[in-house]
């Protein structure tokens, strides 16, 4: 629901990262890492991104979205596992205190320029 705000931040960060000395830079792709547990819907993000990048160096840039799995760690017994469903209870010790190791990422890793 807030993909437009996220797209705007993404554009701001990407434009800031462009080398100042390049004349008319064109971005081929942005490489993102989005956690499965984050509330970002890749399809809506791409949609918003396309709308707001018209006539900018980011126009027609592809969003490469890598989905990051939800990895949980049990601090009580030390077990670490990938959760396929939203059941984050430790399969070994049931009541263990669990912690999210990954799955909430909303990151931009890099961008690729068109040569």
């Amino acid at each position, binding site marked *: *629901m*807030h993909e437009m705000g996220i797209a705007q931040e993404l554009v701001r960060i990407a434009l800031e990262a462009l080398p100042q000395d390049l004349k008319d830079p064109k971005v081929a792709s942005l490489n993102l890492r989005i956690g499965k547990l984050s*509330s970002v819907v890749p399809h809506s993000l791409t949609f918003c991104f396309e709308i707001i990048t018209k006539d900018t160096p980011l126009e027609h840039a592809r969003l490469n979205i890598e989905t990051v799995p939800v990895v949980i760690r049990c601090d009580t017994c030390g077990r670490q596992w990938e959760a396929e469903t*939203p059941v984050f209870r430790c399969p070994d010790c049931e009541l*263990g205190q669990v912690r999210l190791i990954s799955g909430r990422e*909303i*990151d931009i890793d*890099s961008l690729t320029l068109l040569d």
Partner: protein
Amino acid sequence: MEIKIRKNILEKNLTEAEKNRHFFREKNLFVLNMMSSPGSGKTQTLCRTLEQLMPDIQVGVIVGDICTTNDADRLAETGAKVTQINTDQFGGDCHLSAPMIDTAARKLGCDDLDLLIVENIGNLVCPAEFDIGENARVVVLSVTEGEDKPLKYPLMFQVSDAAILNKVDLLPYLDFDAPLAVENMKKVHPGMPVFELSAKTGQGFDPWLTWLRQQL
């Protein structure tokens, strides 16, 4: 050519949230972020909570809504200091962000407060994503929403420090399976305290108030 960036896209909000946290720590203020879907009973729960805590504990409230000052008016009747954020002025956002809280907290004035409660916009998705510089998060689920909501909105229940199952006064009229709802919350967030209560009748309120007082 590849250019490395390696940034959280929400970094601006995170930086602002850290600033808020610092500001609140300096004021010796505990900040609670209260979240739920629309109509679960955040305002009703807060009204009763404020009646019980005030005046021993000085509470301020920031209430976010897309439109209207209805909730702020209801909360102000308890004597607490209240300020309203209407996000339509900010583009009808579905959540409160850290910069909005900064503005609202300064407008409210925090010097004489012990506890600041933020009633977030009614939404089980977006508010979970945005750090506002709070010390603890509470999610409210009401018994008319279905037992499966924790599994459908896992992020919200995973990031919350406690949950309230509200409107238990309605249980006799519904097929809602309260133990199953609590079990689903604990599947998503093992060990999270869950308070089953009615903001209407006050039933089950004491454990919640005890937990809240312990946080301060």
